[in-house]
């Protein structure tokens, strides 16, 4: 799924909600995961010059989780730990997106380089 425009971010949210529905996730977990996906996808559109997001399901039945992997072609993040801290923003947002997304999911991984852009992995279980 490509991320280029704001409406792509909305599509990514819908896909995230569908994936969570498929593993029978609770309303709260679904909302948290979809919100995190929204933050990450928007970052890719605004700062990452567009990107790609994909959703997969893993794990044994009953304890499945959804994994979202988002990669962009942007300039990368220089200082990842600073970017995750609340209140940090190079744009004019509140700077709660990355750190907030991290708190909303069960697993959060981020790698970034100036050559390959930024890759964010989010994982969330059903409850």
């Amino acid at each position, binding site marked *: 799924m490509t991320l280029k425009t704001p409406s792509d971010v909305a599509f990514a949210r819908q896909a995230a909600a569908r994936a969570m529905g498929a593993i029978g996730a609770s309303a*709260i977990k679904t*909302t948290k995961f*979809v919100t995190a996906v*929204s933050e990450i996808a928007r970052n890719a559109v605004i700062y990452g010059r567009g990107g790609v997001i994909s959703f997969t399901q893993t794990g044994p039945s009953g304890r499945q989780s959804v994994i979202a992997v988002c990669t962009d072609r942007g300039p990368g993040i220089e200082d990842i730990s600073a970017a995750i801290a609340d209140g940090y923003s190079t744009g004019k947002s509140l700077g709660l997106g990355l750190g*907030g997304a991290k*708190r909303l999911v069960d697993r959060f991984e981020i790698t970034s380089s100036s050559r390959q852009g930024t890759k964010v992995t989010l994982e969330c279980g059903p409850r």
Partner: protein
Amino acid sequence: MLESANPVPMMTINGCVIVAIRDDLDDQEIVSLQDQLVEEVAKRAAHGVVIDISALEIVDTFAGRMLAAMAQMARVMNARTIIVGMRPAVAMTLVELGMTLDGVETALNADRAVNAIVSGRSNTP
């Protein structure tokens, strides 16, 4: 664009602008909603704004920031703004994000918000 050709329904009753946001607006649609809202407040010389977000399953930092901004803008235009109908899951997510929307007034539903605005009762302690 097609999306902006489909504005969010808005009505003004008794000097109170009532907006019910439908689910999943993209960022641009939220921005155009903001334009639409401030214009409506000015046109009707409204003294109150009620934004119903009960249909929203997701409020992320962008949407939260825009909601707070709308409330602030309406306030400087002398319209008291109340956000109503936030879902429990959305409230918990916003708190987790660190967005507590401190300056924004809230109410459980549109009915209570309109009553509060019309009667001039303060909802904050």
